[in-house]
């Protein structure tokens, strides 16, 4: 069974803080993704990565950065948290392209910025 874990289920941070969200997958997947989920907007892609040290911007990368130093770990960084970044953050992973497009999701981190 593929397992994607996220470091926290709930997180409360103050405006201006630097926030790290960690994601780890245990199935040697090549690709990893970060989304945020907001009511009425569904899941929106923030960043994704095809390989270690590689990253690609998604649809809403502003205010975020990512790090992938190891294949199994993909971190999302909020450089200076703002209240409009209060959201549910979901991490996902998938096998190599051409093999499967199916993404496996972690349980999510609900981040509140006050």
């Amino acid at each position, binding site marked *: 069974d593929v397992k994607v874990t996220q470091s926290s289920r709930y997180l409360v941070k103050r405006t201006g803080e630097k926030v790290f969200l960690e994601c780890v997958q245990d199935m040697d997947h090549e690709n990893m*993704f970060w989304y945020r989920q907001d009511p009425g907007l569904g899941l929106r*892609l923030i960043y994704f990565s095809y390989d270690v040290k590689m990253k690609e911007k*998604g649809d809403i990368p502003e205010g975020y950065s990512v790090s992938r130093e190891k294949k199994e770990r993909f971190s999302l960084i909020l450089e200076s948290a703002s209240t409009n970044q209060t959201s549910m953050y979901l991490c996902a992973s998938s096998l190599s*392209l051409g093999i499967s*497009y199916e993404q496996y*999701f*972690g349980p999510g981190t609900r981040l509140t910025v006050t």
Partner: protein
Amino acid sequence: DQQVKQNSPSLSVQEGRISILNCDYTNSMFDYFLWYKKYPAEGPTFLISISSIKDKNEDGRFTVFLNKSAKHLSLHIVPSQPGDSAVYFCAATGKRGDMRFGAGTRLTVKP
């Protein structure tokens, strides 16, 4: 601008009847489509998918139909069960594998 649209935020059906969830997309580069199911406090889980070279894919009670000319897909659940109550997301992807999701449809199946 959302490339994948689910225009019905909610759907309620009686147990045993058919549930039909609809999805439209705008990007003609999409060639693979998926449906995910999400329960509260959990991440989405994969349900069923379809490649653009097909127009139908069936898996047990779940069938996905694709109409490429209309850029429309639908998920049929027959018969619907109370355990099917969840939020359903339609998703689409192209060769790069980066996926775009709809806003979701909350399905409620009443006993």
